[in-house]
């Protein structure tokens, strides 16, 4: 049940700021990206970090886990990783002679799935099933993963030999896809200075708890989204579907995720209602990885980002209108 009040919005704004600040102890100069990841955390989505090695993807995931104070696990995906290595398996206990379920690393509040595109399709599928269902089914028994459950997956866009590209349906499971990128000069110099705490996740303070995250996840679904905004979101999705450069547009699940992320974004700014700029700011992070351009468009240099940008720029934004 939602019980959203002005006080709870104000409390969340403070909490959101604390979490972002805590993560920034380890990840310098990437506040917008951190805010996106935190927004995904509070809206119940998963994050796909896509960047070259050494840009802080793993650090970000671990720092987030540290700030939440919950359990965190890390899986380094390799081609020989089996689904049971991820989800767990049923084993015979020699001491007791009983058969029991041994949970895999997915049973954590924050799971870092490193280089997810290096695992075989079967393992990826098992992983993504957990992401969607929030449970692991073994021998007919469902084992729920902890709540909250946030997967921060990383993948390397270069050096693609021996990788298994994530299928579109599985990409759709990720709420946002973000790119960290290299830090700017000032922050990179700060990282390089001897004694810098950048990348040291042990210094990240615990500022929240899994229970608190779970409570706000439920609470923030009550942030008001006006009917014109819902139509605006739908029009954005429609634009990605009808764009001649698009082979696959945003799904309804994607649009629903965009609304949810916008609710968190609005609450993080102290509002109990969503405004068009919330949607515009999140649209690329939420939609880009779900839109697939046509081969011809790719040859012409167009990207999914271009398709989404065209939708944002071409569709009239809702404005306050007197009755």
């Amino acid at each position, binding site marked *: 049940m939602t019980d959203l009040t002005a006080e709870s919005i104000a409390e969340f704004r403070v909490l959101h700021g604390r979490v972002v600040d805590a993560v920034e102890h380890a990840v310098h100069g990437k506040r917008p990206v951190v805010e996106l990841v935190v927004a995904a955390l509070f809206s119940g989505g998963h994050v796909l970090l896509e960047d070259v090695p050494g840009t802080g993807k793993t650090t970000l995931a671990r720092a987030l886990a540290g700030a939440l104070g919950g359990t965190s696990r890390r899986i380094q995906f390799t081609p020989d990783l089996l689904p049971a290595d991820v989800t767990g398996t049923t084993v015979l206990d020699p001491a007791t002679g009983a058969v029991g379920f041994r949970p895999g690393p997915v049973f954590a509040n924050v799971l870092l799935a490193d280089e997810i595109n290096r695992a075989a399709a079967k393992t990826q599928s098992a992983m993504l099933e957990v992401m969607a269902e929030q449970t692991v089914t073994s021998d007919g028994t469902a084992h729920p993963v902890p709540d909250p459950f946030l997967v921060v997956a990383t993948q390397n866009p270069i050096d693609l030999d021996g990788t298994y590209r994530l299928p579109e349906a599985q990409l759709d499971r990720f709420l946002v896809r973000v790119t960290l990128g290299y830090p700017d000069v000032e922050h990179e110099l700060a990282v390089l200075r001897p004694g810098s705490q950048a990348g040291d996740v042990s210094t990240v303070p615990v500022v929240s708890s899994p229970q608190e995250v779970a409570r706000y996840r439920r609470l923030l679904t009550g942030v*008001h989204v*006006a*009917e*014109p*905004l819902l*139509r*605006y979101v739908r*029009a954005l999705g429609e*634009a990605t579907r009808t764009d001649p450069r698009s082979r696959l547009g945003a799904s309804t699940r994607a649009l629903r995720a965009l609304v949810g992320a916008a609710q968190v974004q609005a609450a993080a700014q102290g*509002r*109990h*209602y*969503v*405004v*068009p*700029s919330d949607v*515009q700011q999140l649209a690329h992070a939420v939609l880009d990885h779900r839109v697939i351009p046509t081969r011809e468009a790719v040859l012409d240099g167009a990207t999914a980002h271009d398709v989404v940008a065209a939708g*944002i*720029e*071409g*569709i*009239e*934004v*809702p*404005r*306050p*209108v*007197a*009755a």
Partner: protein
Amino acid sequence: MTPRPTGPATTGWALALLLVAAVPLAASFTTPVVLALVLGALLAPVGIVALGRWLRVPPWGVASGGLSLVLGVALAFARAEPAPAGPASEGTWRAGPGGSLVAPLADAVARLLTAPRPAPLELALPVLLLCALVSLGVALALARGSAARLAPLVGAAVIYGAGQLLSAGAADGGVVATACVVVAAAGWVVLDGGAVGRSSTAVRLGEAPRRARVAWTVRGLAGLVSVLVVGAGAVVVASAVDGRPFEPRELVAPPQVPADLANPMAELARWQAEPDLVLLTVAGEHPGYLSWVTLPDFDGAGWGASLDLRPVGSVVEPALAPGRDRGAMDVTVELVGLAGSASPPGPWLPSAGQVTETDLTGALVDADSGVLMLPVGQDGRLPDGLTYRVRSEVDQPDAVRAARAGVPAGDEVDRYLALPRFPAEMREYAQAVVEGASSRVDQATLIAQEVRGERELATDAIGGSSYVRLREFLFADRGEGGQVGTSEQFAASFAVLARAVGLPSRLVVGFALDEPGTGSPVTVRGQDARVWAEVYLAGTGWVRFDPAPDAATASGLRDEPEEQDVSDAEPEPEGLPEAPPPGADDDPVASDAVPDGVDRGGVVVAVLLALAGAAGVVLVGLVAARGLRRRRLRAAGAVGAWQLVADSLVLRRGRPAPAATVHAEAHEVADLVRASDRGTARGVDHEAAGLALAAEAEAFGPPVEVATSDGTWDAARRVERGLRRGAPRGRRLGWWIDPRPLRRR
């Protein structure tokens, strides 16, 4: 994109446009009740279409059902209308025997076109049917939403055109047309693509692509410009064309009236034998003569007339245009010797000029000759003591204009030039008479002088006007019956010789009064009956020539400078050029003449005034619309206050990008104000940001009761002033009349 039905605002605009366009149509009738009926005919199909949509009847069903209903009701009214009775029935249309189902409707149109103008209420059915059909078509188009801009305009054009046709252009001098343009323009400016696409949030949310709105704007402006260009072109063409307005009645065959008429020439001799016989009394204003029967047709043996009779008041122009100098005369005639059992048989009524009105029920008139008649009973005589009043347009030819006038050519003149089997001897004689004449009037004057000559007028002379009698009259010696004749021979000789030299002429049997009357009653006796000739001159009209030597009959006309009486004729100049052959194509009008009834300078002034008036109306409308919008925005709280700011931003730099949010616009406001006035920028940019926040909270937050604050509105006005202050001079001048904010919601 599937067209969507239009809203009530567009429907109301379309109806208003059609109603304004229907004003000339309704003005063509005798009673303003027709305008109310027209309004009903316009509203009913809209109701039918709305009902059909409410009942979810498919569009083709609404169209066919509406059409059937309209036609059915019209047919029922047409068949229920009783046929006219009495003498008036002679001049009105009725369904022919064995008429089809729709014959009454077809007859209704013909009856309307042959009826006097303005038409009576009973003949309004075709007009109402037209309005209903046009309204049905417009309502169906609006229901589809596919031609929401064009359909009302086309419908209005059809209705307005019908009104102008029905009245031959007399119903509107341009005021209604200007009003139509203003109403159309107002609709196109105020009702934007959103109103047509739908008034909901669809457009605001981007469901209507931006290019659709742009296309709507472009098409609207193009249409408006087209209307103005076509209208201006029409005015220019109308001012440049010298001719009569198109008259649809000319396309309708007039009702055939039985005309078993006796030759009036026979009565002339009887009246002249009884010079004191009182024929009629005349009161009121008259030109000094009354025509009784006009005889335009000559077959070599005698003169006659084939009449094209229509009810008095019917809109029909004579084949030959009347003169430019005309005057209205109102005369009351009481028939004494011309009516009753002792009177000669015949339906003719003395009148003057072209009769436009009379109090006689069932009177008919021939537009070409001006002959007025009343259908008579079995005995062929007019009722005893018949008294009637006629109002006429009488030519008052100007002598100067007539001296420069030529004669027209064409089929319509051939009737007045016909000389079948004309003797060569008479043709040579005529050409010899006019040799050296410097103008057409000179030719006529010379012929009249020649015919008068030394000849003698005798009431007991042998009658007739065949070639034989005329040759005897003109060329034989007095002892052989020549040189003596009645006014018939004098006039007929003049007319035949005039035709021989190409002057259109005709004979008129009538009554010469002492002098042009001003009101006192005049008694007309047998001695006053006579025959004279008339010659047609372009731009001057029919000019009377009476070559008979009795001065008394022409004395009333001598003082008129425009009358060409032989006694006042100029002496024949020397070296007159040879007369043109019959049928030659003279200049129809003098070179310095202007088109009939057209003053080009006046037209230009009128057009300029109309354009200025239209511009004034548009300006006032824009100011009023902007004022109403501000009033509405002021009552709308923070959202309205922000819209005032957004309007100002539009006026300052045009429409925003589709993706520009309120916050982006607030930043832009701050930048613009900061760039133009740093002194006030700080306060204004903060106020703009605050207004944006408040507006978004009100618009996108959960519904709450919002208190209207004057402070919010005042802040918006300060932001507006800041934006206006930095605007270019042109935009500042047009700030309060710029229609662009009206296109925003």
